Structure formats: C-alpha cells, structure tokens
C-alpha cells in the first residue's frame, strides 16, 4: 500500500526541508506507513517497550551523571546525596536502577518471542545478529553501571567479572591489569567505567537504529511466520500499531512503577548499601538477576578458562542461530516438536538463573551443569537435527486467511480494498 505513495506535506517549512533532506518522507515511510503484519500479537510490543526503556535510561542517566562523582572516596556518598538531597533524586535513581532490570525483562521477552516465531531466519539474519550485539552492549553497560555506586557488590562484582579475563593464557593478566589501570579494582577502574557507562548507551542507540533499519528492509515477522503477501495482510504502523504498542507500553510502565515506588530495592542486593571495602568480600556474592543464567554457566564448568569460554559461548551461539536452525519453517505454531523443546529451553534458562543465585556447591552445581549441557545441546545438536527430522504442519496460504476466518472468505476481498488507500 505504501510503496508508491509519496507523502504530500502541507506545512511549507516541512516541505522546504523535505525537498532538500527527505527526513520527513523517511519518517513517514518508516513509522507512519510502514506496513505491519495485521496479525502480530502483544509480544511484538516488547521491541517498542525496550526502545522506550533505552530512552528512559539515557534521560535519567544524564541527570544522574550531573550529580554523581566518579571517585572512590566520594562515589558512595554522592549517590546517597542524590537519594537524600537532590530534588527527586531518589525517584530518578530508582527509575534508573530498576530501569536496568525492566530493560532486560523487555529484551529477554523480545528475544524469546524471536526464538518462538523464528524471527532470526532468512532474510532476518543480520537483524538478529545486531540484536545479539545489542544484548552484549546492554550487558557491558549494566555491569559498569552497577559498579558506579561503589558499594560492596559493585566492588566485588567488578573484581570477579574483570578477573574473568585473567583466564586467557599469556595475555590474561596484562589484560586485567590494563582493564583496572592498576593492580586491583580502584579509582582508575571506577573512573573509566563511568566514562564507558556514559558512552555505551549511545553505541547501543546506534545499534538500535541499525536494528530497526534492518527490520524495515525485510519487514516484521508475525505469529504465522509467513511473509505478508500484499496490503490485505498488513496495517499501516501508525496509528494501528503505535496505539497498540502505546497501550502495551503503559501496562509495562504500571509494572515498572510498582517496583520503583513500592519495592525499589527488591531487585538489588542489601550489600550494595555498604560502602566498598577491598579487604572484606561479602559472604555470598551474586550478580544482578539478568546475569544469573550466564553466571551459572560460568560456574558449571570446573575449569577457569573453560567456564569463561562457555559463558561467552552461550551468547555467541545465539549469533550462529540462523544457521544452526535448519528448519525452513519459522513459527513454532507449525513445528509441533520444536515447540516442546522451546519451552524446555525457556525452563532451562529459568533453572540456570535460579542455580546462578545459589551457592555453587552440591546439588545446585549439578543442576547448573545439567542446565548448561542442555543449553548447548539445544542449540548445537537439537536444532540442526530437528530441522531435518521434524515434519512441520501445513502452512496457511496467507496471513489474511486465518485472521479473517471468522468473517468469512467473501469479506476478505472487500476489506482489502480500503486498506490500499491507507
């Protein structure tokens, strides 16, 4: 519907600019007329929700950075000054701290939606890989942000995670010393983490722009996993999807506000309200919840280098997913066997997360090992084989067909026509 339709702008200023730099045409094309499969469900809103989270994080982060002092002697106090003295400082900090968790919730749901509906398959491989880079950038940003309040968990989290790099033979120790800018996590480390924590969100923003650009080349996937065949299969993004996503965003904000206002420290750890002490490690250190499955994988391998490689491998394997999954059918709806394994993987991720929060000993170590083994089995063995062995269900002819089932076939053609004008 939108392909050949060039917008006519009434505003002379808009017209003048657009004839020289067609940003309004571009915006109209990408966010107004952009054809969205009409059968997308609310899981498709999590991309927009994640985007809103990034904006909230950058906005709150900017004003917090105006009050924060990145020096080991005053970092903790400056955060408490934000909490106690800065106007609405407590609100901005809690929005930012809980926002990190909400961002990960949105992105993890977004990813599992992609896994379930096969959104990583051709022609969306680069779109998916950009998503994996976004996840990596988010993890780095979140990790460095958690260091800034300079509490006990900040300090010991920084120490443990930077020590991961010491696992690499020969270059490991020099790399760690370089990361620290000294012989332990100290002021130079805090300072550079602050600089990088400020920089990375903008890298993230750039990746998101590329991610969206790649999305708009191939168009959005949908619950059926089949391509839109024509205007009758799609709706213009604005206002149909903007309003639908907007509703989803507001519902998500209610959930978010529940944490910010009534349980702001629930997702944090009490030890981070104790100032960093390089001489005393807390009895039980755990990363933030969004790292727990990866932390469990790290600890499941009884070898230091092996653990680090497995942890990074758990993310790298996602990047290879478009080629590991050999099935031509995208959506789980039509893959009865894979659908079962998808849920097992989802449960596996939760189990790994739980095991990551438990002490790495006894039964929990065993659980983490089984979970890790299954995680890699799923991606490296199951998916390539299943694509060849599984007999998918017959695919519908078009998106419209099942959508309009209730309305009857006759109506389908009649309703398609007005849409062409849109």
């Amino acid at each position, binding site marked *: 519907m939108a392909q050949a339709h060039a917008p006519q702008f009434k505003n002379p200023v808009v017209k003048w600019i657009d004839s020289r730099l067609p940003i309004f045409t571009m915006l109209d094309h990408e966010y107004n007329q952009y054809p969205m499969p009409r059968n997308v469900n609310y899981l498709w809103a999590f991309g927009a929700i994640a985007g809103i989270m990034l904006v909230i994080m950058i906005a709150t982060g900017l004003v917090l950075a105006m009050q924060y002092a990145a020096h080991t002697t005053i970092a903790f*106090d400056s955060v408490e000054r934000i909490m106690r003295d800065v106007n609405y400082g407590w609100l901005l900090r809690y929005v930012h701290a809980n926002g990190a968790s909400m961002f990960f919730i949105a992105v993890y749901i977004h990813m599992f939606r992609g896994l379930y509906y096969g959104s990583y398959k051709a022609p969306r491989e680069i779109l998916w890989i950009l998503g994996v880079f976004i996840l990596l950038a988010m993890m780095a940003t979140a990790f460095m942000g958690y260091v800034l309040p300079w509490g006990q968990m900040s300090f010991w989290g920084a120490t443990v995670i930077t020590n991961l790099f010491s696992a690499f033979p020969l270059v490991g120790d020099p790399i760690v010393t370089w990361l620290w800018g000294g012989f332990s996590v100290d002021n130079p480390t805090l300072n550079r983490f602050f600089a990088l924590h400020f920089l990375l969100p903008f890298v993230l923003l750039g990746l998101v722009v590329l991610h969206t650009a790649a999305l708009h080349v191939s168009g959005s996937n949908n619950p059926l996993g089949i391509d839109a065949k024509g205007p009758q299969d799609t709706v213009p993004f604005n206002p149909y999807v903007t309003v639908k996503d907007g509703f989803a965003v507001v519902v998500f904000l209610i959930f978010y*506000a529940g944490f910010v206002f009534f349980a702001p420290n629930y997702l944090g750890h*009490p030890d981070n309200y104790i100032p960093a002490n390089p001489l005393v*490690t807390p009895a*039980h250190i755990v990363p933030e919840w969004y790292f727990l499955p990866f932390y469990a994988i790290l600890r499941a391998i009884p070898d230091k280098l092996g653990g680090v490689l497995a942890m990074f491998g758990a993310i790298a394997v996602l990047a290879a997913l478009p080629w590991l999954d050999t099935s031509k059918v995208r959506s789980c709806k039509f893959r009865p066997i894979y659908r079962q394994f998808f849920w097992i993987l989802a449960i596996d991720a939760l189990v790994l997360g739980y095991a990551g929060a438990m002490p790495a000993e006894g039964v929990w170590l065993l659980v983490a090992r089984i979970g890790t083994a299954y995680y890699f089995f799923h991606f490296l063995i199951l998916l390539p084989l299943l694509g060849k062995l599984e007999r998918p269900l017959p695919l519908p002819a078009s998106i419209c067909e099942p959508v309009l089932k209730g309305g009857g076939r006759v109506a389908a053609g009649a309703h398609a026509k007005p849409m062409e004008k849109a």
Partner: protein
Amino acid sequence: MRSLKSAILSAAFALGLAGAAQASEAVHIPKQEWSHSGVFGTIDKASAQRGFQIFKEVCATCHSAKLVPIRTLAGIGFNEDELKAIAAGYEVQAGPNDAGEMFMRPGIPADRFPSPFPNDNAARAANNGALPPDLSLMAKARVGGEDYLYAFLTGFEENPPEGVTLMPGMNYNKYFPGHQVGMPNILMPDGVTYADGTPATVQQQAHDISTFLTFIAEPHMDARKQMGVKVILFLIVLAGLMYATKRKLWSTLH
C-alpha cells in the same frame, strides 16, 4: 573459581564468623508489625522520635550515622527550633581558623551527625577490634531490613546454647550470621526514659530504634509511596483510555 572461593573464606575469617557453614544456614527472621509497611504505610513519627532518643543516648556512643544531615529529622516532626537545639547539642569540627588550627563549634542543622570516632581504626581500637558499622543505611544494608534489626536487637542470649564456645569478647545472638558478635546486648528495660512517657520495654525500644533507622536510611520513603499511588492510578486511567482507543481503531479493520 578457586580465587572466588578463597576470597569468600578469607572474608568469613575477617568477619570473625565461627564458620562459613553456619553463615549459610538460613535463620528465620520473624516479621514485625510496622506502621510504614505496605503501600499506604507511613513512618510512625512518634516512634521514630523515640528511636532518635535511643540513637542519641545509646547507639551513637559507638555508631556513626555520617551520611545523615541533622536537618533530615524534620521528616519525623521536629520543627526548625527543635532542629537547631538538637544540632547545637553536637560539637562539630570546623576550621582551619586563622591560626591554621581545627576547632570545635556547635552544630547547625545543615551538619551531618558527627561520628563518635575520628576514623575506622580509632573505632576498632576502642571496640576490641570490631568496627561498629555506620547506621545511615543499616535498614537497607541487611537482608530482612527493619525486621532483621528488631530481631538482632532482641536476639541476644546471655548463655550460648550447648556446644557453642564464644570467642573472647564476643556475644551470642540468635539472628546474627554466625551468631557471634562483638556488640553486647545494649537494650535494657527502662535503659532510656522516654520523653513522652511511653514505657521503655526492650521490645518497645527495639521497635522504635528500628523505625528510626528505617527513616534515616530512606527519608523520602513516605513521599515515594504517596507519589507511587498517584502515578499508578494515573497510568491505569491512561491504560484504560489507550485500550479503548485501540479497540475503536482496530474495530474499523475487523
């Protein structure tokens, strides 16, 4: 992994815990009734004021609350003149003066609570090697929050259970991780005389000081919850409108 484990072990020794195994043993912390719990709960100001009296007369002889400005107490109902009087009761180091020397002056409400010891080492030296932790954030810095504080303060036992040998200078506490703690049992029946005439039982004192510590750990808690109720109500209205709009809009499509 080995380095992490050894770090944990050395930390356990540094804290003077009897054993890491005991520390990981879950101790059940009983829940208390707090006026400030729940969505609509607010700090009990009278209780927090009594708690401040205990803080001033008992806790502050060993513990600092160095992140808390005295003016914060306006949040539990002290007026400006009372704050000035409270502040003037403290000696605050200032200077250097024209002769280059530090001197003491009476406090003003903008000052933070002065610490009982000039630095951590002095605090350790005066307390048998144990560092009395800063209380500014104590209610947020322990698992269990104010319930833990109450349990800890009422959890001392004069005679440790069979089979537990206390290290010299240590005291037995049911709820402290590892059970051996340098701090003695300090709350005695009528150990303070409340200005408002409330009977000063140990439970009452523990309740009041825990309320006070909850307040200073997060002076904006009441404001936070009140704003939260408004924000969520607003968002529910907006969500309803958005949903109606979405329904109307999509109904044109079938």
